[in-house]
């Protein structure tokens, strides 16, 4: 469904002035914000409830709260897991360990 106007030849719809925009997944999940990134999972994890092929939307601007699912860089490798303040006291995004992004949304296509 397009957001643009249709040409009406007969009576103008009384609904027109109440028209609102379609739902937009881009807007809802802030897809075009500079801090939003999407990654794909390889392999299953019962513990995290994730399946191979799942896609995750990450927000890099958020400060994670305890136990929130985050993508970490630990010893220069990516690792997905629960955030723990105790484990990651000093973050250094240029050379050390840090939170690469906070997982906000799970995208799973059902086949």
């Amino acid at each position, binding site marked *: 469904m397009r957001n643009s106007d249709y040409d009406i030849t007969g009576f103008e719809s009384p609904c027109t002035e109440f028209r609102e925009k379609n739902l937009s997944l881009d807007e809802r999940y802030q897809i075009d*914000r*500079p*801090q939003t*990134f*999407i*990654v*794909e*999972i*390889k*392999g*299953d*994890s019962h513990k*995290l409830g*994730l399946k*191979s092929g799942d*896609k*995750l939307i990450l927000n*890099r*601007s958020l400060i994670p709260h305890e136990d929130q699912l985050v*993508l970490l*860089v630990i010893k*220069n*490798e*990516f690792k*997905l897991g629960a955030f723990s303040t105790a484990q990651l006291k000093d973050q250094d*995004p*240029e*050379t050390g360990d840090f939170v*690469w992004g906070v997982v906000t949304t799970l995208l799973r296509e059902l086949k």
Partner: protein
Amino acid sequence: MNYIGLVDCNSFYCSCERVFNPETRGRPVIVLSNNDGCAIAFTKEAKAIGFGEMCEPYFKMKERIKKYNVAVFSSNYSLYDNMSRRVMEVLRDFTPRLEIYSVDEAFLEFNGFDHYDLESYGKKIRQDVLRFTGLPVGVGISTTKVLSKVANKIAKKQNGVFFMTDQLIDQSLKHFPVRDIWGIGHASAAKLNMLGIKTAYDFKMYKDDKLIQKLLTKTGREIQEELRGVSCLAMENIEEKKNTGTSRSFGVSVYTKKELKEALAEFSTVAAEKLRRQKSVCYSLTVFIHTNSFKEQLPQYYGTDSTTFLSGTSDTLRLIKGSHLILDKIFRPGFEYKKAGVLLNHLVPKSQNQLDLFQGTPNDNEELSQVVDLINKRYGSHTIHSAACGINQNWKTIADYRSAKFTTSWNELLRIKLG
């Protein structure tokens, strides 16, 4: 007081690669040009072990790359473009006026920011860009563009941020070599050195304005004024481009006219899309083809010619046709071609396009172009293109070490292994 900030990304291409390949952090990283011919970007770790000579051929570096465990990437322009736009989006929130100067640097206007502590503001900019995009930047702030460039260079030597206040300007310029000033090339620096001008401070204080005007023209005088805190280079919103174009070296040597026609059709397509994106038309088209000048033992040839249009155009098919007519004139058989390109000159905004006196209406098939652009935007570039661009495209660029298009292709997302 009006202030200007200059933000630029450190080793931009290499840093983009590191965001998605954290194992390359701390290691030397280099990025190769189109066709993996030579190196065009280096991290400071790579420079520290002797890399950094612009366009050093890749084959000459191979041994050293192995020895020092250097991470090598083919250039991934789709990724760099996307990351660049992210950086600019973050910066936009820090200023009412942003001038994007290049893929990895931008000027920020800070008029009426007197009640701000610009040193902390600069730190916040650096911190946010790093957190949001993963890219490290340097921030220099001062009263003119030239001075903010100076401040930026000094920032890189400390913790990445430098607010060069009026009180700090003179002592900073005293330690700043004149050849490092923005806009002062080798030749100009040599002339200034002859006059005994060694540092930016010497240049600022040099009294004989007329002599500077004579030696370095108006540009040199403007730079000198900017060093004195007098703003001469205004903020520009959109750079009005006078020409655009596309050229590429071929992945393999190309001998036939058929292959060159395909390549030129492809370049014309890309260039026409650029034109339409900036809502311009061009009045003239130049095509060039040439052999590989590094292969001195082979016969060399450089061919070029231009054609003009009576009414401005941004029509892909017209430009392809034009490029093929020129090729017919300049093509010589028996040479091993290495590079070709199209240049579109004399650009004007589409709204100022002149009509062809004898034809009355423009020849551009605008509706077709619009539909093609829309389809390619929705389903990915090259979904629909002129058959003149060829199907196999044997001449296509080599990119053996290109990283994935992590941010623009669903098929190439960053993969995270579990377990």
